[in-house]
């Protein structure tokens, strides 16, 4: 008997979409505190609701590579980076998007933390 692999794959796909939904719901939870992690340690916590004026901050240096982060009232994103793939720039604003902002080459994570 031929194993019906497409059934297994459809079931897996359904489970994964379930997982995706849970992750999205988790992301949508109301939090205004952004955390910037570099190389496994907490670099900065920013309460986005307290931000009155937009500003940028630079994480890293020329040698290790750097990301310029734009902080605005209520939201945060990577504005510029000198990493090779620039995926962190394209991930857009937090809160929002598919999940935390990740820059793998520079080991940088921006996530919405607990209040």
């Amino acid at each position, binding site marked *: 008997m*031929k*194993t019906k*692999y497409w059934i297994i*794959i459809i079931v*897996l*796909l359904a489970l*994964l*979409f*379930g*997982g*995706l939904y849970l*992750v999205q719901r*988790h*992301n949508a939870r109301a939090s205004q505190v952004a955390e910037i*992690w570099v*190389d*496994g*340690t907490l670099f900065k916590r920013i309460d986005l609701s307290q931000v009155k004026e937009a500003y940028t901050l630079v994480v890293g240096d020329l040698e290790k590579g750097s990301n310029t982060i734009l902080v605005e009232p209520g939201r945060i994103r990577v504005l510029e980076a000198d990493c*090779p*793939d620039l*995926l962190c720039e*394209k*991930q*857009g604003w937090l809160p929002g998007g*598919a*999940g*935390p902002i*990740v820059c*793998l*080459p520079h*080991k940088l*994570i921006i*996530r919405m933390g607990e209040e």
Partner: protein
Amino acid sequence: MAGSKKEMVRRMSRDALLTTLALALYVLEAHLPPPVPVPGIKLGLANIVTLFVLFRFNEKEAAAVLFCRILLGSLFGGQLISLLFSASGGLLAFLLLLLLKRILKPSQIWVAGVFAAMAHNLGQIFMARLVLGRPEVLAYLPLLMISGIITGLVTGITAQILLKRLRGVKILQD
């Protein structure tokens, strides 16, 4: 003639050529804009070659072609850190492929593409989790695996068609 020197040279040249083909696909793909801005999501066209070698020839030659391509691809790509992700994903995918080769019929080779892509995404994201030292990146696991199923379908079906259509090509016979 099996095991003779001439046979060895023939296999080596053929596998080198196939590795070059895989590398060309890998480099080509690196120049395409990423479909989604999530680290780790890509088409994985080079895996068509891995699947082809595994199902047409044998495990040893597929491993050689795969790991030479990963090593050289990361050197050409200029991102040494990507070697870690490719290697961990590639290793996990290959281990699963060893099992799949034993149970899949020629008409089911596309399944190997799907499961290998998912295994690759799994291996790569756990390596990313280790490198980043934080679990946030695991939030991308469902998205990565869904993309793996889709891209794996593409590469798997392509490999299956190629295995059938290229049956008569002499230099690609074992």
